[in-house]
C-alpha cells in the first residue's frame, strides 16, 4: 500500500518516545571504563623497603615513543632515573612504551580526566607518576 512505509516509520519513533532514554548524565554519573582502556601510565614501585622505582632509566621507552614525549636522564652509577617526565600534551596513548619496557616498569591506568591551565601543567614528572599503592606481587603479563 502507498503509505505503509510512512506509518511504520511513525510507529518506530513512537515506540522510542515511550522508552527509557539511554543518556548517562555525565558529570554526575560516569561510565566505567574497561580494564584495558587507555589512560595515564604510572611507574611501578618494587617491594623493597623503602620502595624504589622498578624503572632503571634505560631509555628504551623514550627511544620508541612515536611522539618523543618521554624524557629520561640518569646518572652513570645509579639504577634509578634522575629525571623522568612524560608530556601528556603530546602523548597519543598508544602504549608502545609499556610494551617495549624490558623491566615491566610501567603500568596502564584508566585516568583520562585531567585539566591544566598552561602547557606546562601537562608535563608530569616521576613523582606525580608514582603508583599509589606499593606493588605486592607480580601481575601476569597481560599489560
Amino acid at each position, binding site marked *: 500500500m502507498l503509505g505503509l512505509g*510512512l506509518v511504520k*516509520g*511513525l510507529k*518506530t*519513533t*513512537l515506540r*522510542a*518516545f515511550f*522508552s527509557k*532514554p*539511554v*543518556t548517562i*548524565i555525565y558529570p554526575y554519573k560516569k561510565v566505567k571504563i574497561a580494564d584495558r582502556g587507555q589512560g595515564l601510565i604510572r611507574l611501578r614501585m618494587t617491594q623493597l623497603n623503602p620502595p624504589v622505582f622498578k624503572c632503571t632509566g634505560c631509555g628504551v621507552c623514550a627511544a620508541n615513543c612515536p611522539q618523543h614525549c618521554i624524557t629520561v636522564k640518569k646518572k652513570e652509577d645509579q639504577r634509578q632515573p634522575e629525571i623522568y617526565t612524560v608530556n601528556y600534551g603530546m602523548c597519543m596513548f598508544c602504549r608502545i612504551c609499556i610494551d617495549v619496557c624490558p623491566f615491566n616498569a610501567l603500568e596502564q591506568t584508566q585516568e583520562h580526566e585531567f585539566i591544566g591551565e598552561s602547557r606546562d601543567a601537562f608535563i608530569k614528572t616521576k613523582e606525580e607518576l608514582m603508583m599509589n599503592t606499593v606493588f605486592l606481587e607480580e601481575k601476569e603479563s597481560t599489560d
Partner: protein
Amino acid sequence: MIWWVVLLWALLKLIVALLFIFLTALVLIYMLRKVMGHMQYRMGPRHHGPHGIFQTIFDAIKLLGKEDIVPKGVDRWTYIWAPIVVFIPSLTIFAFLPFAEKIVATDIEISLFFVLAIMGFSVIALLMAGWGSNNKYALLGGLRSVAQLMSYEIPMIIAAMGVVLMAGSMNLSEIARAQSRIWYIVPQAVGFFIFFTASLAEINSTPFDIPEAESEIVAGFNIEYSGFRFAAFYLAEFVNLFIVCALAAILFLGGWQPFKDPIYGTVIFLVKTYVLIFLAMWIRSTFPRFRIDQFMDFGWKVLLPLSLVNLFVTSVVVLVVDKFKGNI
C-alpha cells in the same frame, strides 16, 4: 476624555496578547526539543530548572546578548526589515482566532477568508531575507521558498472550502458552532489530510523544510542572520506552527466544542491544538525531506486534484442533503 481610556484598554489587550504569543513560542520550542529528544532515546534539555523548563528563556537571553552584525554588501533596507516583516502575518492572524464561545478579538463576517489571505504574506519576508543577504545560499533558499509557498496555498484553501460548504459560513466562530453534532474531521477526512499537509508546507516544517534545508544549503535564507534577528525568524516559525494547528483545530476538530464555558472552552481548544502540534513534531522527527521537484509534483499533481475532488463531492452531498431536508 473617554478616548484615552479606550486607547489604554486596547494597549493593555495588545500587550497581553503579545505576551501570550511569545510565551507560546517559548513553550513550543521547549516542547519540540523534549519531544524530539525522547523520540531519539535521549532526553532534551534538563539542566536549567526542573526538567529544563527555563532553557528557552536562557537561550533567548543569550541570543539577545550577541553582537549585531550586518554584513558588508547587503541590501540594508531588506536585510533589516525582513525579521520584522516575518512577524506581521503571524500576529495579525491571532486577532481572528476564537478561543471560546465569546472570546475572540475581532469577529468579522469573513474571518476565514481574511486569515487565509494574510497567510500568503509570509512569502515576502522570506524573499526579503533571501535577496537582501548578499549570499548565494540565501538566494537559493529564498527562491525555493517562493515556489513552495505559492504552490501549497491553493490546495490548502480549497480544502478549507469544503468545511465552509458544510458549515454555511466563513466566520470562524460560526464554523466552530456548527460542529456541535459531529466534528468535521469525520466527513472531511481527506480534507483534513490535505489541509494539514499543505499547512506544514506553508510553515517550512520537515518534510517540507526545503528553504532552510540544513544539510544542503546550510540554513538557507537565514544564513546571514545571527543574534536577535535569527531569534525573530526562529520564534516566528513556531508562532506559525501554533496558528496553523489552531486553525486546523477550529476547522476540523470543533474548536472549543463541546464546552461553551469560557474557561473550559479555552482549555479544550488548547488541548486540541497541542495534540495537532505533537503530530507535527512527530512527523518532523521521523521523515526525511522532499527534493524540490518531487515536492512540486506532490503539490500540483496529487494534492490539488484531490482537493478539487473533495470540494466537488462535498458540494454534491450538501446539495442533496439540503434538497432532502427542504422537501421534508
